[in-house]
């Protein structure tokens, strides 16, 4: 911040810097907003905060342009045309809030009385502040049908589940302060968007300056790869094969791995029987390990870890058992660098070299002293994110990458792959928030904190009939489901006896028509709703299908008591400070705009379930006595935020205190950051629970005609191709994928004129990236207008940008562009709408975690004149 004298002394009635939080993406960096005479004239990063550390990205700096966009909605709108469709004018008519709320509440009352599950709530992932109010609202109303639109569906079903199971966190990142060798698989952490984005950018830059070697495995040499020491281009969607081949080299060729870590912190020593399951102690049911000293099989709890065998074959209770690690070693052998070269196109020699570098840099066995605490030191990290996430095999892609860390003990220790803050002992005054991972009966880690209560492990048992439209009752490892919008949703709901159908949609800020998949497919699912209400900043393509559109407040007009909590989401990992910032309103609503969280409270009052909503807030915010909300008292959202803050930080630190201070922070302890040696939990290198889960699911689905491919449910990861890898139709020779552009957030920021200008200056933001040699081979030139077409005849048009920086078979399309609606005129007609190419159905969804396949085999042809 740069407050110069003239700023302060100028004779204005109002000249104030307010501490708040950005919301141009879910990173939610801490900001200082400069307000003069009621107008926000500048937004800067708050250097006092650990979240962003005073930095903002281009989107954050440009946030003002979104806030002051003249196309912002200012009044509630009601459609007058009952027909809905792409070519139907809704005939918007302005209505009062009273009219709007009465009508919505009437629908809510009817549905709640009939069957509350008929309500679906979708929210954008961009605005993290919408998470808790939405969760509380759906819990109070009584519907399980809550979803996070395309942001959730495209990004997270693999990443978050595996990060949760292996690191007790929502995501992972290298320990930038100490890491010497980081390998990224389709990730850009510290170089673009994502969790703790701006903090990580500074940390990553410092790490590279310090000499951290960064290897980026990605079909496209963009944000992270461009700054990396080495870019490793690979065939789209083959990350698991490469990671497994590296594991093979480490285990079977170099024989470098961390035996004490594997013995003590993983299920590597657990004995596996011929049925692929743990051999268990008949009395206690605890998994058995082989005690090398006594020469007997004993429960894992009864043997010092150093005595547990990792290799060998042992007869126990009449069956032959082998340690999970021995089976892993055998399993990896099929991923020879030579075979893997055929799958990935990465040369075998490079695979060996990368594996060797990673293994040796791990310095297995070394320790370091930090603040007087001796800790394991493993300065390597393998991380994955959206790139390797965007495939049907995302579970194995992630697990395979994380095995690299687990093999050398580079998990949540100094220099290693860190989860985002999985262990917190709380503020010194209140000891809150307090959470630590814990072990289940099998000794495996259960996360101490999650973004909801649908924990990644242990998985629930699949059940019928499904109560959720997304079928997560059946596919219990699924998070965000494609079946809320899929072409085959009705067939699936019938198969799984879903006893109701959706009738009402509340949409918060998501542009579902653009963010999920092909727009016709999504539109068909949306047209089935009897009533849609949408809270929006702008009239989006999706809000045009709504019955009522409500004008939302922007982040500069809103309040949120927990901008960066849970800490597993977007507080920087590594040493430093715990930091709990808030968001406060910097300017009032314009026109009749209202804050989403307040409107939800009002709707609960009008529909008669305020007591339920108060109880849901008690549960969601984990409010402690005496700050728990009582009965059906009509609290404002400010009062709820106040209760949240006092409950966590003491009576004297309520919302007013936080408005003044912006945040509270306290130092992290080494044993919180590098918690792994201090917490007695293990993680599964062998996913024993997957096989029975697959069988249980198959027992439900197969009698109903839905085959479960068992190779998705094996305990050890494999590379499994997507439908695109099986497509050999002539001419369809590119794997199209989209990537998260650094200057845009989903489809939302395309309307921002500064970001639009930056995107137009960028050679790739609005174009289609193709390898130069591949383009030449097909006679296609830089700047040519081309059709990109799938086997199913879905197609989009765009201009080519040729580059050496993309895999010869890859076709890269940025972000979520290609708006067509009039409500966002700056965005309209810019860029390429990749999602138009995506099928949304069972065939393109992972049968294990419901991940939608986001890569698609395409044909690229020049646009003929006049087309």
């Amino acid at each position, binding site marked *: 911040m740069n407050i110069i004298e003239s700023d302060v002394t100028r004779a204005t009635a109002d000249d104030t810097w307010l501490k708040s939080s950005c919301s141009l993406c879910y990173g939610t960096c801490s900001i200082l907003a400069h307000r003069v005479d009621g107008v926000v004239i500048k937004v800067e990063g708050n250097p006092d905060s650990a979240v962003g550390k005073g930095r903002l990205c281009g989107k954050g700096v440009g946030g003002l342009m979104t806030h002051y966009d003249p196309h912002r909605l200012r009044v509630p709108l009601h459609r007058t045309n009952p027909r809905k469709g792409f070519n139907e004018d809704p005939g918007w008519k302005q209505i009062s809030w009273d009219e709007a709320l009465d009508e919505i509440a009437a629908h809510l009352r009817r549905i709640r009385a009939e069957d509350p599950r008929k309500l679906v709530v979708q929210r954008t992932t961009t605005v993290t502040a919408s998470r808790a109010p939405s969760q509380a609202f*759906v819990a109070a109303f009584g519907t399980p049908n809550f979803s996070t639109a395309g*942001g959730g569906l495209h*990004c997270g079903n693999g990443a978050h589940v595996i990060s949760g199971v292996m690191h007790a966190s929502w995501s992972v990142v290298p320990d930038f302060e100490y890491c010497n060798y980081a390998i990224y698989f389709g990730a850009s952490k510290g170089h673009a968007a994502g969790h703790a984005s701006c903090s990580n950018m500074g940390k990553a830059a410092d790490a590279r300056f310090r000499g951290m070697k960064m290897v980026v495995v990605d079909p496209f040499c963009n944000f992270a790869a461009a700054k990396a020491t080495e870019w490793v281009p690979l065939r789209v969607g083959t990350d698991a094969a490469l990671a497994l081949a590296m594991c093979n080299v480490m285990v079977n060729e170099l024989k470098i791995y961390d035996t004490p870590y594997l013995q003590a912190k993983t299920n590597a020593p657990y004995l596996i029987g011929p049925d692929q399951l743990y051999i268990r102690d008949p009395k206690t049911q605890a998994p058995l390990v082989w005690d090398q000293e006594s020469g007997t099989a004993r429960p894992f709890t009864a043997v010092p870890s150093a005595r547990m065998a990792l290799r060998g074959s042992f007869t126990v209770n009449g069956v032959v058992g082998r340690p999970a690690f021995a089976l892993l070693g055998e399993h990896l052998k099929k991923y020879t660098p030579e075979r893997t070269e055929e799958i990935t196109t990465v040369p075998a020699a490079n695979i060996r070299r990368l594996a060797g570098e990673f293994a040796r840099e791990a310095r297995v066995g070394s320790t370091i002293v930090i603040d007087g605490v001796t800790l394991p030191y493993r300065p390597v990290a393998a991380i994955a994110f959206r790139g390797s996430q965007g495939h049907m095999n995302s579970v194995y892609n992630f697990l395979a990458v994380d095995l690299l860390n687990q093999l050398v003990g580079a998990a949540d220790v100094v220099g290693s792959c860190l989860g985002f803050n999985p262990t917190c002992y709380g503020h010194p005054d209140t000891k809150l928030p307090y959470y630590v991972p814990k072990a289940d009966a099998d000794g495996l880690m259960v996360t101490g904190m999650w973004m*909801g209560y*649908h924990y990644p492990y242990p998985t629930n048992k699949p059940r019928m009939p499904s109560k959720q439209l*997304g079928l997560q009752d059946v596919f219990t490892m699924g998070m965000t489901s494609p079946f809320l919008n899929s072409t085959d949703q009705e067939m699936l709901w019938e198969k799984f006896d879903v006893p109701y159908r959706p009738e009402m949609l509340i949409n918060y800020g998501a542009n579902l028509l653009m963010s999920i998949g092909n727009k016709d497919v999504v539109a068909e699912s949306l047209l089935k709703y009897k009533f849609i209400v949408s809270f929006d900043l702008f009239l989006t393509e999706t809000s045009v299908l709504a019955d009522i559109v409500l004008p939302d407040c922007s982040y500069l007009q809103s309040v949120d008591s927990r901008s960066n909590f849970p800490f597993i989401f977007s507080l920087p990992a590594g040493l430093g400070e715990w930091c709990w910032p808030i968001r406060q309103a910097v300017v009032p609503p314009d026109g009749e705009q209202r804050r989403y969280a307040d409107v939800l409270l009002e709707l609960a009052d009008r529909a008669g379930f305020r007591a339920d909503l108060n*109880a849901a807030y008690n549960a969601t915010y984990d409010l402690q006595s005496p700050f728990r909300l009582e009965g059906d008292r009509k609290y404002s959202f400010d009062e709820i935020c106040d209760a949240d803050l006092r409950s966590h930080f003491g009576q004297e630190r309520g919302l007013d205190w936080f408005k003044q201070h912006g945040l509270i922070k306290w130092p992290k302890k080494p044993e919180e950051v590098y918690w792994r040696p201090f917490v007695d939990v293990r993680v599964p290198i062998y996913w024993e629970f997957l096989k029975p889960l697959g069988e249980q699911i198959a027992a439900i689905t197969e009698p109903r005609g839905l085959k479960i491919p068992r190779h998705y449910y094996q305990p050890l990861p494999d590379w499994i191709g997507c439908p695109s890898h099986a497509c050999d139709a002539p001419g369809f020779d590119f794997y199209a994928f989209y990537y998260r552009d650094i200057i845009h957030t989903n489809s939302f920021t395309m309307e921002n004129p500064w970001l639009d200008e930056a995107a137009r200056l960028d050679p790739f933001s609005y174009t289609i990236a193709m390898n130069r040699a591949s383009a030449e081979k097909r006679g296609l030139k830089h700047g040519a207008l081309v059709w990109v077409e799938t086997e199913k005849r879905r197609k989009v048009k765009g201009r080519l940008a040729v580059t050496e920086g993309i895999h010869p078979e890859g076709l890269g399309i940025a972000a979520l562009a290609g708006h067509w609606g009039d409500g966002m005129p700056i965005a309209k007609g810019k860029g390429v709408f990749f999602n138009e190419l995506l099928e949304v159905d069972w065939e393109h969804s992972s049968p294990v975690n419901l991940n939608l396949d986001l890569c698609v085999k395409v044909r690229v042809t020049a646009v003929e004149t006049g087309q």
Partner: protein
Amino acid sequence: MSATLRLPTADARSRPLLTAELVDGTEPGSNAIVPDRVIRVWLFGILSRFTTERPLILHLPATATFGEAIDTLAHRLGGQFAELVLQEPRKTFSHCRIFADGKHVENLNEAFERTTSASNIEMILVMAAEGG
């Protein structure tokens, strides 16, 4: 779905409600075992559909555990309620949030405070699977 149910005795069910005043009469920290226990159960969200009463009153033996309270509730409210709340006997879903006198219940095998004779249980399902 089958749950092991431990029902309150008929005798306990027929007794008049114990009132909160009894709580006040109990000496804090004393090990005195109260003869009976009244549980006021507040069901929210979709769980509230299973009863028109809020709170719903349960009488349990003085030594009752949270798990026994849930089992009794499941028996009273039927299989559909049990299916929503219990993933197996004595094991609730992680998204089933139970608070006893304002404190989150982590372990169903724990007993209610021995020094009080009346308690409030709040239950709500926070089912939303988060993504992104």
